[in-house]
């Protein structure tokens, strides 16, 4: 077993703080997203246009991973990227401005919420299922060749584990002993298709064995379970011992995207009862790790940060349509 930092009460408080920040952020985006799309629902209307995939319920994955990562490590994420971006340390103001399509955004309004690129934190995401994994291999390759102990974390959903890119990536990463940690967020649903109807195995973690790498499944959306599994896998990667696969059974608290009525979801009424945030908060209060006042203070500071980011985004300039052709290339223009 490779050593990683022991789970202390400080670490527990930090993870809860991160989960609160993420939930506060997603609730604020939810509010802003729907604020100007009625009457009716026009997906292209409003200050935040387009598809919106929110990550409420999946905070444990982000908080448990982020606890072990530095700004120098890399992460690639999915179409549902906000939680892991925040936990990776992506700048909240610039990320929010990108979601609002502003010139001050991470991609100057050219990317959008599924295409966040932050070179300062080596974070990126892709809207194509499983296709964010291969670039993480390349980042890990560069880290390895330069003799560093930096790692790349590649996050994907459980639907991605049935894509060719997933299997190619696991094989290549294991073959070259790349410092990569593959993390599957199993939220039970590929849009409307339950995993039982899409996946031949009950745990994707077993698929690690096919490529000669450790595979572990974290049950019950446990942030401490993620902390331990990620700690082990990341330490292993940093030590030069190669990639690992982690699957976390997590929860999609809301729809696939905003506007999804989830008529296909028979368990819908019971979903709020599985919310990991109050569960973890209550557990820490009961164990005396935090007080109710601590939690209120976490919430207040999260609201301050999030509302500051949203205000920054709203006050930022809208890109000039005349500049739509800028940034196609680094050098010269298309003719």
């Amino acid at each position, binding site marked *: 077993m490779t050593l990683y930092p022991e789970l202390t009460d400080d670490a527990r408080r930090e993870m809860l703080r991160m989960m609160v920040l993420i939930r506060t952020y997603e609730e604020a985006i939810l509010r802003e997203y729907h604020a100007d799309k009625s009457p009716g629902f026009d997906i292209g209307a409003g200050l935040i246009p387009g598809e919106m995939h929110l990550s409420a319920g999946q905070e444990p994955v982000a908080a448990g991973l982020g606890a072990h990562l530095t700004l120098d490590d*890399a992460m*690639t994420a999915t179409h549902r990227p906000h939680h892991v971006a925040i936990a990776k340390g992506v700048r909240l103001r610039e990320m929010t401005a990108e979601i609002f399509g502003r010139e001050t*955004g*991470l*991609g*100057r*309004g*050219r*990317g*959008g919420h599924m*295409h966040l*690129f*932050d*070179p300062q934190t*080596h974070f*990126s995401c*892709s809207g*194509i299922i499983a*296709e964010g*994994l*291969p*670039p*993480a*291999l*390349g*980042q*890990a*390759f*560069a*880290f390895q*060749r330069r003799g560093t102990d930096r790692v*790349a974390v590649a996050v994907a959903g459980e639907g991605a584990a049935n894509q*060719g*890119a997933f299997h*190619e*990536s696991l*094989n*290549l990463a294991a*073959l070259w002993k790349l410092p990569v940690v593959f993390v599957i967020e199993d939220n039970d649903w590929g849009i409307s298709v339950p995993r039982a109807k899409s996946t031949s195995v009950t745990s994707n973690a077993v698929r690690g064995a096919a490529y000669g790498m450790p595979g572990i499944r974290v049950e019950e959306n446990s942030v401490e379970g993620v902390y331990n599994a990620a700690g082990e896998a990341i330490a292993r990667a940093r030590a030069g011992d190669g990639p690992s696969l982690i699957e976390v059974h997590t929860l999609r608290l809301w729809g696939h995207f905003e506007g999804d009525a989830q008529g296909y979801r028979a368990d819908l009424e019971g979903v709020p009862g599985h919310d990991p945030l109050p569960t973890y908060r209550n557990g820490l209060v009961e164990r005396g790790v935090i007080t109710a006042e601590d939690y209120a203070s976490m919430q207040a500071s999260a609201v301050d940060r999030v509302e500051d980011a949203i205000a920054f985004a709203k006050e930022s300039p809208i890109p000039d349509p005349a500049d739509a052709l*800028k*940034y*196609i*290339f*680094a*050098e*010269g*223009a*298309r*003719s």
Partner: protein
Amino acid sequence: MTMTTGAPGAGASIEPDPGKRKLSTSKAIQEAIAQQMRADEGVFVMGEDVGSYGGIFSSTTGLLEEFGPQRIIDTPISETAFIGTGIGAAVEGMRPIVELMFVDFFGVCMDQIYNHMAKIHYESGGNVQVPMVLMTAVGGGYSDGAQHSQSLWGTFAHLPGMKVVVPSNPYDAKGLMTAAIRSNDPVVFMFHKGVMGLGWMKKNQRSVGAVPEESYEVPIGKARVAREGTDVTIVTLSLSVHHALDVAEKLEPEGISVEVIDLRSLVPLDRDAILASVSKTGRLIVVDEDYQSFGVSGEVIASVAERRPGLLTHVSRVCVPDVPLPYASQLEYGVLPTPARIEAAVREAVADRLSS
């Protein structure tokens, strides 16, 4: 991810005198890669059979011996994984040269190419660069069938965010490869098997030519007048350049003067060079080994028609009609843009002049 601050070896000479030393196109490509690898530790080669085999079409022969398996890297047959690995390494500031063995194989990895390699710079608002070369073999003429003979450059040129270069000869191949490696943008480098000078495939007479020993660049986006003429312009690229030159030589004694434009790059496209030539001749023939419809030939014609439609007294195309490339040699040569088809197109183009 790092912002790439400057290409290695900047300030190299641009299109110097060719000198006397002769190389095949494949050796010219190898030399360009080797020189850039010596200049920059971040340059490496990755792909199927690029190591001890030296590349199926000899694009990397000898490189393993000099640079070792840490920089000349054989991969599994996992194009999505290793092209994506190139992208990630480029994003972190390395300069990968990734070989896709046949362009026909793009179907198994196009998402990495057009949704990632080509779009990251734009989606990041210019904050993340992808200085990567995707090198791939194109073209038919040797009965390799419908899945190993395509040119497909029009498909890559159609999709925004990648530069596309298609050299026809050793001099341009070395200069364009050097420019591609040094570029901070993703560049698709498409070499025709028939211009590589391979010992096991029918050689074109110009697949061996003069190449300077020094490192130099052929600017991406600049066409070349391969032969000057006054009656008709042939705009073409890759192997077809040589067919066009052969036809031009053949028809010269008859008093038919053919100008041949070698595009060399498709993205950016040198529309000014096309327009300048047609301004002189008024007659335009586009010869393209890619499929005819929705591709390069239509784009070349449109670039004149949109700007100076009055120039055009004649327009025609010699392309692969929209059919999968057949296996039987007689069938394949029935659809390729052969010298015979090009000659017939030229004679038709100048028929009005000869009859008057």
